C-alpha cells in the first residue's frame, strides 16, 4: 500500500467517489475498530462508534485538510465517536450500581498462577490480562496507551489525534503504563518472569 494510492483515494472520495472510500474503509477498518473496541464497553458499541467514525469521515472529507494525516484524523473521529457514545450512555444509564467491567477489574487472578510452560500460551494469557488491565484505566489513559502500543503513533501524532499538547501525552502515557503495570503485577504472573521476556517489538 503506497501513500500515493491512498492520497488518490482520499481525493476521489472527497469528491464523492464511494468506491474510493470503500478502499479507505478496507484499509483502516481494523485499526479503527481496534481502537473503538478498547475505548467502548462492548463490541456492539465499538462497531457503532467505528461506523460513526467512517460516516463522519465520509461527510467531512470535503473539508479535510490535505496537510493533515488521514490516519490520525480518522482515529480522532473514532475516538470522538467513542467519547460521544460513552457520554450518551452515561446519560441514559440509571444508577446501575456496579458495571460488569468494575467487577472484572476486581477479579482475583491468584489462582491462575500455575504458569503454563509454553511461551506462546503465557503471552496470550498476558495479553488477556492486558485487555482487562486496559479496562481498569480511565478513558483518557486507555486511549493514549492504545494509540501508542497498538497503532504505534509517536507522541506528536497522539497529540494531534487527541488534540492534546505533547506534555499531556507524555504524562498520560507514563501514568497509563504505570497503572497497567501495577495492575499486572497485582494480578499475578507478571513480575520476575517479565524481566526475561522477549523484547521483539522494542523500538518502532
Amino acid at each position, binding site marked *: 500500500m503506497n501513500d500515493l494510492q491512498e492520497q488518490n483515494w482520499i481525493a476521489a472520495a472527497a469528491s*464523492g467517489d*464511494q468506491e474510493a*472510500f*470503500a478502499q479507505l*474503509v478496507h484499509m483502516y*477498518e*481494523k485499526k479503527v*475498530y*481496534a481502537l473503538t*473496541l478498547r475505548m467502548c464497553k462492548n463490541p456492539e458499541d465499538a*462497531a457503532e462508534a*467505528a*461506523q460513526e467514525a*467512517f*460516516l*463522519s469521515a*465520509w*461527510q*467531512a*472529507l*470535503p*473539508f479535510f*485538510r490535505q496537510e493533515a494525516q488521514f490516519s490520525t484524523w480518522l482515529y480522532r*473521529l473514532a475516538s*470522538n465517536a467513542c*467519547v*460521544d457514545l460513552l457520554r*450518551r450512555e452515561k*446519560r441514559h444509564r440509571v444508577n446501575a450500581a456496579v458495571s460488569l467491567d468494575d467487577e472484572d477489574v476486581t477479579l482475583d487472578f491468584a489462582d491462575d498462577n500455575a504458569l503454563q510452560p509454553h511461551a506462546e500460551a503465557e*503471552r*496470550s494469557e*498476558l*495479553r488477556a490480562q*492486558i*485487555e482487562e488491565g486496559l479496562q481498569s484505566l480511565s478513558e483518557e489513559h486507555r486511549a493514549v496507551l492504545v494509540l*501508542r*502500543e*497498538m497503532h504505534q503513533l*509517536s*507522541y506528536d501524532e497522539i497529540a494531534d489525534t487527541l*488534540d492534546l499538547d505533547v506534555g499531556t501525552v*507524555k504524562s498520560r*502515557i*507514563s501514568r497509563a*503504563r504505570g497503572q*497497567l*503495570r501495577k495492575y*499486572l*503485577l497485582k494480578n499475578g504472573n*507478571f513480575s520476575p518472569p*517479565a*524481566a*526475561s*521476556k*522477549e*523484547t*521483539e*517489538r522494542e*523500538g*518502532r
Partner: protein
Amino acid sequence: MNICENYAALLDLYIDGELSVAEMEDVQQHLAVCPACQAYVDDAFAIRAAFPDVEDTVLPEDFSAGVMAAIANASRAARPRRSQKRSWTRIIAPLAACCAIVLFVQNTNGSKKDAPMAAGSSSSTTSTSVAYSAASASDDAMAGGMMKSEAPESMVTMDSAMMETACDQKSASSDGTAATEPAMRGGILCLSPEQAEAHLSGHDAVENEDGILCYTLSAEDYTALLNALEQTEDERNVISDTGALPADYVLVYQAD
C-alpha cells in the same frame, strides 16, 4: 521497588523512542546500575510484546458493507448535507418551526390569504409553495412522504432533510446572501472545539439533550464572529453542514 525519581520522567520516553541519542545513552547507563528502573523498562517491553495486535482484531461480520450501506443511504439525499444523526433532527425541528412561521406570516401578509392550505398545488405565487416544491424536487428521499397539501405547521414534524432545504430556501429568498455563504446556513454556524475556545470563551452555552453545546449570539456578535472567522485560517474549518457534526463541535445560533 520503585523507579528512581530522577529518571521517572525519562523512562517512558526511552521506551517510546522519544529521546535524543545523548539522553538515551544516559538512561542506558543508569539502567545498567539500577534494577528497579530496569525492571520497569523490561515490564514495559513485555507489555508491548504481548499487547493486542491490530491485525488480530476480529471485525464484526460485514462491517465494511454496513459502513458503505450507511454511506449510500446518507449520500442518496445529497452529500454532505445530510447525515443519519438523530440529533440533527431535534436541532432542526425548532428551526423548521420558525421557518414555517416566517413563511406563514409572509404568505398571509403577501397574498392576503387566510390559510395557505393549497400551497404548492395551484397557488405557485406564494413563498410557501416555492419552498415546498423546491424542497420536494431536490429531495428524493422525502418526496413520497410529504404531501404538498399539508398545512405549513406540519413542517414541525417533517424530516430534517426537508426542513433544511426549506430553511435554505427561506434564507436565500429573504436576504439573498445566506445561500452563497458556505459558513452560514440560516444563521447557524458549526465550530470546532478549538474555534469555540478561541472565539466563544466570553459567551454562555446551553447543552442540548444530545450534549451539543449551543450558543446564541446577538446579531452584532454573530457578525463579529463571522468576521473573526474570515480573518483567520480557521475559516476553512467552518463546516457548512451541521449534519456532519463531529463530536465536541458546537452550534452557534444568531438571535433574532
